[in-house]
Every structure is written in C-alpha cells, then in structure tokens.
C-alpha cells in the first residue's frame, strides 16, 4: 500500500527551459516531509485511508491536549495541518499475502511521485473579499462616459412579472478563499534534497499556502507528445524515416 498524496506549501513561481528550448512556467512546491498520524481501516472506520500531517514547526503551547494525545499515539511530532489521503491497494497483494504496507508514524516524501508524470493539486484560492459583479462574474459593466455608471451590474430582472429575482442571479458577494482543484499539472522536476516538486502551471492560493498534492486521478491519455516534447510515436517516426530514404 502506498500513500496517494502529500501535503505541500507553495513557494513561488519561476520558469524553466526544456531540452527543446521552450520555456515553461513552473510553480515550486515544498512537498513534505509528511508523517502518517493515523491509519483508517476498513474494519474500524469503514474505509482505508491515511491521515497525514505536514511536518512544520509548531509551538508546544499551540497544541491542545487532545491533539497531543493523538500525536503521541503514533509517536509523531506535532503538526499544523492534517489531511486524509486515500491508500492505493498493493499491486501484488493477492490471496492473503499482506504487503508490507504503511503504518502510523511513517514519513512520506516527495519521491512517491517518482513514477508519475501528472499531479492534481487542491488548494485554497486567494481571498478577494466582497467583490463586485465585474470582478466576480466578468460582467461588462456600465458605459465609461455619457453620465458614467462604471462598475454596476444593471438590471437584475423584469418588473411586475415575475415580481421576484430568479434564484441563481449573479450578484456581488464574497469571492475567493474557496477550495480549488487543478488537475493534471505536469511534473517538471523533483528535488529530494529540499523536498521540492516543480509542476508546470499555476497552483491556487498565495505563497506559503498549504496545498494537497495527489497523483493525477485522470491523467491525459498516452499519445504523441504525452511525455513532453521528447516523445515520438515510433510508428510515425519509422514512416517518416522511410519516406526520406526514397
């Protein structure tokens, strides 16, 4: 059994050149180290999962007694955030053969993604506060001249019929600070020394925001150009080569 995800922290963005010379936007994530604080089992909890915590410095006075006991049970240092991640069934675990599996107290490092090309990332987007309709829903706004009414939404419905506002009418309100999932971000590098994971593209949330990184649930189908620019379809490559000989 192996853990399917890890907790991380957004460090920042930069750019990177690949072998072809193309430049890619990169988000740097500090992924782990994490510890397994508790194992949920099918027998006891009704499902299999691992509760993991991001190892971070936490003041002893900030941990309450209940949590202290919880951490002491699996003999792990106090952690700031906990998250549950699913466990992958062992690949060779047939008839009763118990794979060595994971146990509470185990460390999880970024090398769990060593064989993966894509990850899904769940984060909390930057909070925008109480935002108007133009920012929140992309409304066009009012005219910029001719008696100016700039950032208004205009009418929200007809008058005497229906005499009410339809549910779902897009209006100003709180924006951001939501859970956002970004799927299939390509892994551009793994740094085991510093526990860094470099992914291509943007990740929700501010710098130093916590994110849950998991193996891609539905990675793109394997096709030409799947593994980056280096992948060439062998069939097409041979056709091309033979065509050139003529």
């Amino acid at each position, binding site marked *: 059994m192996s853990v399917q995800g890890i907790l991380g922290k957004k*460090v*920042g963005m*930069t*750019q*990177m*050149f690949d*072998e*072809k*010379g193309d*430049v890619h936007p990169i988000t*740097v994530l*500090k992924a782990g180290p994490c510890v397994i604080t508790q194992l949920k089992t099918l027998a006891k909890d009704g499902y299999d999962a691992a509760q993991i915590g991001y190892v971070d410095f936490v003041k002893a006075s900030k941990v309450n007694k209940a949590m202290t006991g919880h951490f002491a049970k699996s003999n792990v240092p106090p952690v700031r955030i906990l998250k549950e991640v699913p466990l992958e069934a062992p690949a060779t675990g047939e008839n009763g053969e118990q794979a060595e599996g994971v146990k509470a107290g185990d460390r999880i490092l970024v090398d769990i993604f060593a064989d993966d090309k894509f990850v899904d990332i769940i984060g909390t987007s930057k909070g925008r506060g109480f935002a108007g309709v133009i920012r929140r829903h992309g409304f066009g706004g009012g005219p910029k001249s001719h008696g100016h009414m700039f950032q208004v939404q205009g009418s929200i419905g007809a008058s005497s019929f229906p005499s009410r506002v339809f549910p779902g009418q897009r209006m100003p309100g709180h924006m951001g600070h939501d859970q956002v999932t970004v799927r299939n971000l390509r892994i551009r590098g793994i*740094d085991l020394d*510093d526990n*860094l994971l470099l992914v291509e593209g943007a990740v929700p949330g501010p*710098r130093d925001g916590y994110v849950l990184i998991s193996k891609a649930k539905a990675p793109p189908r394997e096709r030409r150009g799947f593994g980056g620019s280096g992948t060439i379809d062998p069939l097409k490559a041979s056709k091309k080569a033979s065509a050139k000989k003529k």
Partner: protein
Amino acid sequence: MSIHPIMQKLAAKLERTDIPAFAPGDTVRVQVKIREGEKERLQAFEGIVIACRKGPQGSFTVRKMSFGQGVERIFPYNSKVVDKVEKIRSYEVRRAKLFYLRGLRGKAARLREVERRAS
C-alpha cells in the same frame, strides 16, 4: 520583497554559467542555434548590448544595424537558443539602459571605446 531562500537555491541550480560577464555598452557576438528541419546550425548575431535584466528570468537586448535598419533581439540568459556569447569590445557608457541609441544614426550613434576589466 526578498527572494525566498528556496527560490534562490533553485535559481542558482537552473542558472547557466558558461556565458561570460558583459555589460550594457559591450559589443557581443551571440551564436544563435537555428533549426532547419532536422538539422541545427549556428548563426551569429553581433551588436551592442543596450539592456540587461538580472535575476533568474533575466535577459539581455542586443542591437545592431542591418542594412541601415536597426534590429534588436532579446535573449534570455538561460535560453537554449543561445549557444555561445563572445565579448568583442567595450564602449564607455554612463547609463544602464542605452535606449537613446535607438534615436541616433551613423556618426551620432558612435561611442568611445574603453578597456573594461572583467569584473
């Protein structure tokens, strides 16, 4: 805002070290990789460096006169397109960005050559 130590470390790792030090006011010859179908060849772009942007995503701008027409190219320092950079000579300049050269032609666009020690 200061740079995060992790980002600094990463930038140092990704940085190219084979490009010699040069500054605005230097004439450089940049060997540019050009792909023609399957083959790759080098093409030189020679001109005066009129701007440098530092940092992990830094770039430099090279300006030259090509048949009476000013041509500028911006090269990222870490770009794989840049095969080699040779410093040819240095001129005395008193500012970091030499954009004023764009408005000058011929004799007016001359600069005084200096011996600049490699710093």
